[in-house]
């Protein structure tokens, strides 16, 4: 009995020590102005997914490709800074952003209320849909997967999971740390359907053995930034609108998604008046180097510095 009590006491003391260390180091979250930080640092640190083709993904040589990657490259060039990619997963994107590890998350995150309580979003720059990815030969009607006997797979932190849960509270889920595990799971039958976005679903289906259902929800995606950073968020919104006016955003959209843009950019779908006027100080907008735009819209955009 003595050893057990001593062991329990050890555990209690240790927990107290741990808690003390935690609280001692407690401090408010980062509140430095991001735009100034990025310009001073000379580098934009962008969070991007590595497993969501064609929006953000790695090829077999480790190059970062995708619509979001190219948007990030463009933004960095307009800021006149270098670029560093940091991989995010569905579950790590908010913590990485909040702790300041990334300046902006340029990926496929849909704004929702829960997220908006802790982070902020720019205008949409991707208009996607939520679909189900199923095995070839299985039903491609979404309604067939409403019943709780079907196991739904997805990544932890995926926004579709919360939406599906609201519509079907008794659904069964299996959530994995990353997309590739879910794809393998559906192929081998551990899950019956994968909640994912339409663009990526079609890409995954190309690897064989999978089919895509019709959309069951819309999924507009935005760039994610920290709370209470109007300057940074404004600049990103202006950047997106200027890319739209220039036509670059539409061309990148066509390059990666193969379709013309199916949404409208800006406030109520309209470009803000005077957004193309370059402001004085808080509005860096460097000229693009010659040849940059062509390279960006070409096949080898990942070779750009």
């Amino acid at each position, binding site marked *: 009995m003595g050893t057990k009590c001593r*062991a329990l006491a050890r555990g209690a003391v240790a927990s107290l020590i741990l808690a003390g260390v935690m609280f001692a180091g407690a401090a408010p979250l980062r509140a430095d102005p991001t735009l100034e930080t990025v310009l001073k640092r000379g580098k934009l640190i962008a969070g991007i997914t590595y497993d969501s083709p064609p929006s953000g993904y790695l090829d077999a040589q480790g190059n970062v490709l995708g619509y979001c990657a190219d948007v990030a490259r463009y933004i960095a060039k307009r800021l006149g800074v270098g670029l560093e990619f940091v991989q995010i997963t569905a*579950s790590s994107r*908010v913590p990485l952003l909040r702790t300041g590890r990334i300046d902006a998350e340029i990926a496929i995150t849909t704004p929702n209320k829960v997220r908006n309580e802790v982070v902020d979003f720019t205008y949409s720059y991707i208009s996607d849909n939520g679909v189900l990815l199923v095995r070839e030969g299985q039903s491609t009607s979404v309604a067939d997967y409403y019943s709780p006997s079907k196991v739904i797979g997805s990544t932890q932190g995926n926004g579709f999971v919360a939406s599906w849960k609201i519509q079907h509270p008794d659904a069964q889920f299996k959530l994995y*740390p990353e997309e590739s595990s879910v794809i393998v799971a559906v192929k081998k*039958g551990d899950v019956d359907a994968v909640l994912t976005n339409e663009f990526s679903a079609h890409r995954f289906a190309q690897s064989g053995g999978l089919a895509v259902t019709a959309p069951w929800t819309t999924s507009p995606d935005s760039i994610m930034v920290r709370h209470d950073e109007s300057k940074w968020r404004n600049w990103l919104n202006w950047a997106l609108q200027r890319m739209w006016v220039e036509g670059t955003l539409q061309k990148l959209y066509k390059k990666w998604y193969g379709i013309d843009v199916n949404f409208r950019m800006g406030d109520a779908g309209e470009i803000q008046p005077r957004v193309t006027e370059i402001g004085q100080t808080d509005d860096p907008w460097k000229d693009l180097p010659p040849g940059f735009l062509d390279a960006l819209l070409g096949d080898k955009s990942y070779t750009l510095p």
Partner: protein
Amino acid sequence: MDWHILWEYRAALFSGLVVTVWISALGIAGSTVVGVVIGCLGSTPSFYLRKLTSAYTELLRNLPLLVKVFFFYFVLSMPTIPAALLGLVLHQSAYIADVTGAGLRSVARGQLDAGLALGHGYWQVFRYVILPQAVRIVIPPMTTQYVAVIKNSSIVALIAVQDLTYQTQEINVETFRGFEAATAATVLYIVVALTVIGSMTLLQRRVLTR
């Protein structure tokens, strides 16, 4: 710090704890059986048996647990819980085999010779002389291995088994209150480990007073 979410998610944490306990218990049982058998086989005089068992332990100990579990789950396409358990059992059985072998060897060789000289058969000597002493010696390292099984059971969260670690992640992504969830989960893991350590210590006392 918002500790209320622990109460809100108590059902999730509890079900995660149950899954962890189940997987740990099955893992401990399975790896003990397999490990002890292999360990005993490795202590026989047969050259080939010893070589085979050492190949088994070498192979399994030089691969990370994650690699084994992913092999069963992704490459062999086994369902999650059997894949996880098989990986866990194979992983820990290699260590337990070594522990058992060391325990058997540490019982003085003279005991075996003395028993044989007195005319008892090999298996009789093994059962009545060597085994009781070996069991006593082997309990502390066995306890370490059992705690390792409990800790390694958290791997199953990566293949979507809803154990304690998985629930921690779930709470984190739904409420962004990962710190509170992780604290609760850590405390629960420690409680499970302490229970096992306590039972093994009780067992050791029982065996000693025999």
